């Protein structure tokens, strides 16, 4: 790097999370020189810590695992047009983990393939008024080999036979599931009584030593924290390590991509980025791959206007940042007669896919599973029955008698996207580097809530059949759900008037600009999204290298 900070590489990958890590590995292994710019810090397990008040599962105070409190806010516009400046750890920010590894450093690691019908929502259900429900330009079969690659190269444990009932698949999971605990035993009983099909939750976790790393020791702090045994598989300890091992990849933490640079013909020439001290640099590249997460990738494209595209790259049809979606969770809680919390992580264990699709009278549905080990403070904040005093002797007694008895069952409800749920640039507010921040507005489509009610009803039914003496649920509000599962802002499609990238992840009109993160999801599935992000990144990067 010279004094002005100019450097030249084959490819710049922006973001080191689920999609960016995969892209970096595929490119570096294909012989390309790759620079990975990561906005967050490179934190150790100890630095991330086990802070129950500052984590991505229950945030009461600024995160320890990014985004940093001082990085800058977002602006959130509510249904009545009221706007609010929201800091990274506050409700409404819709953040994901911001550190090396992105969401995969702290995630719960549920490793679901989307179901075939998740790719064909519009032709399966029709398009509700006001929504932008659409089919993907590719189907399950296009992605199947890449799901397999993600499962083997990143490492998933699961039950092959049970999985084969839901997905056409060529190869088993590389590892068998983790042992089942008390929650699973109770839910198996309930599912048998109801005649529902169940399967162990597939996890990007080593149930046995794999990839040169140890097996899970079943601690109680899986979701929202880093893994003490390095048994949870994410970008940081698999694909990014592989990329770096080639000697052709370089990872720069605390390096914020500010703007994509273009020549007058529309060819992307590089990336301008800001280092820790605030100094600007430019990395020149043949190819640029955006993998900054759905909100930040859209922001980056919008922050890169040119004469030809005054509203940002790929945005001449006002599509960048629209169809912002995530998952509204529908759930129920049940109070069991016997303890079901056995103190063994990760906690989440048994699922049913019976209600992801083809439910009477609603669009889509959701996978249902039990919950990760619940932190005591989170239990107090979220799991208590309605009507119980929030404090005092009765509250303390309830906590004591029921922390180990109350079980949560829920799932990510397939959202019905709409174009008014979106992220734009705020005209006034800037972050600590002086870059315009994201301005979020809109809400999920009301149909998603109807589906959510249906799913919460099934969750309740399952708990009662499993022996709960009572069960309760609450409605999800009509709002944006674009936090950890954020997606959809650069949707994939063949028509550049209604999409941002083509079926290979390439931004329409830009031969050398790609998006390889959850932004490209047309719809976000009735299951957790990360394995799909990884599979798509493998597909996009492999094709890019084949043509290059």
């Amino acid at each position: 790097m010279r004094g002005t900070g100019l450097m030249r590489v084959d490819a710049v990958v922006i973001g080191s999370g689920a999609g960016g890590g995969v892209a970096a590995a595929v490119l570096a292994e294909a012989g390309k020189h790759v620079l990975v710019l990561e906005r967050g810090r490179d934190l150790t397990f100890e630095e991330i810590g086990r802070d129950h008040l500052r984590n991505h599962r229950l945030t009461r105070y600024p995160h320890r695992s990014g985004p940093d409190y001082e990085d800058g806010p977002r602006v959130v516009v509510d249904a009545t047009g009221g706007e609010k400046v929201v800091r990274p750890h506050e409700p409404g920010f819709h953040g994901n983990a911001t550190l090396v590894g992105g969401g995969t450093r702290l995630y719960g690691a549920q490793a679901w393939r989307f179901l075939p019908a998740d790719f064909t929502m519009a032709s399966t259900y029709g398009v509700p008024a006001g929504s932008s429900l659409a089919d993907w330009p590719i189907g399950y079969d296009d992605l199947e080999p890449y799901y397999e690659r993600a499962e083997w190269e990143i490492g998933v444990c699961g039950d092959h036979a049970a999985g084969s009932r839901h997905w056409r698949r060529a190869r088993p999971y590389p590892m068998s599931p983790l042992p089942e605990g008390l929650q699973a035993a109770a839910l198996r009983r309930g599912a048998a009584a109801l005649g529902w099909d169940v399967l162990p939750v597939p996890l990007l976790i080593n149930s046995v030593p794999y990839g040169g790393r140890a097996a899970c020791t079943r601690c109680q702090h899986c979701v929202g924290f880093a893994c003490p045994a390095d048994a949870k598989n994410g970008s940081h300890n698999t694909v990014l390590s592989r990329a770096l091992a080639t000697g052709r990849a370089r990872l720069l933490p605390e390096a914020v991509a500010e703007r994509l640079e273009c020549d007058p013909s529309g060819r992307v020439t590089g990336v301008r980025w800001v280092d820790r001290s605030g100094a600007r640099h430019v990395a020149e590249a043949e190819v640029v791959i955006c993998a900054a997460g759905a909100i930040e990738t859209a922001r980056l494209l919008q922050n890169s206007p040119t004469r030809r595209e005054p509203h940002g790259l790929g945005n001449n049809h006002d599509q960048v940042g629209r169809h912002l979606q995530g998952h509204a969770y529908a759930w129920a809680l049940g109070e069991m007669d016997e303890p079901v919390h056995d103190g063994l992580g990760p906690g989440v264990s048994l699922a049913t896919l019976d209600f992801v699709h083809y439910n009477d009278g609603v669009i889509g549905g959701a996978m249902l599973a039990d919950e990760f080990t619940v932190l005591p403070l989170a239990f107090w904040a979220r799991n208590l029955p309605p009507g119980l005093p929030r404090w005092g002797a009765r509250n303390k007694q309830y906590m004591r008698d029921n922390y180990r008895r109350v079980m949560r069952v829920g799932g990510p409800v397939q959202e019905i996207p709409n174009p008014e749920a979106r992220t734009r640039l705020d005209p006034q507010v800037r972050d600590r580097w002086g870059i315009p921040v994201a301005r979020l507005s809109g809400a999920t489509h009301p149909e998603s809530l109807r589906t959510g009610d249906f799913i919460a009803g099934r969750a309740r039914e399952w708990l009662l059949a499993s022996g709960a003496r009572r069960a309760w649920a609450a409605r999800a509000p009509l709002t944006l759900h674009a936090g950890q599962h954020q997606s959809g802002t650069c949707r994939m499609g063949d028509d550049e008037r209604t999409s941002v990238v083509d079926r290979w992840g390439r931004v329409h009109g830009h031969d050398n600009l790609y998006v390889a993160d959850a932004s490209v999801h047309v719809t976000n599935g009735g299951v957790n999204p990360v394995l799909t992000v990884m599979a798509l990144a493998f597909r996009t990067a492999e094709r890019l290298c084949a043509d290059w």
Partner: protein
Amino acid sequence: MTPGQAATLGAVVDTIVPADDYPSGTEAGVLDYLAGQFGRDLADLRAYYGAGLDAVEAEARERHGAGFPELPPGRREELLRALESGDTRVPWPFDAAAFVETVVGHVMEGFYGDPGNGGNHDAVSWRMIGFEVGD
């Protein structure tokens, strides 16, 4: 915080998490947690806490002719529940119910949060509910 406010705070904490076979909030270290937080994340709320505790004290004197810490536990609970439902007898500089809700949240953080944050000494609340952490 004045000695009077500190005494009221201790009594409020032990009303929110009273002693039974397990320690009360103050016995479990909630005041240590709060002291740490007032130098940190809750620094901006010190004046809010001071004014709120004064108002709680004034409510106790107005209703019972005695300071909040001197009231029997049942009366203290009754008073905080009244404030929580919006029933105030003296002027408040801000919403009394919101004050109680805020304090309850912080007390629970100190009681059920991880010991690394200064409260929940020896993970006593975790042992009470059965959240036992291995390595």
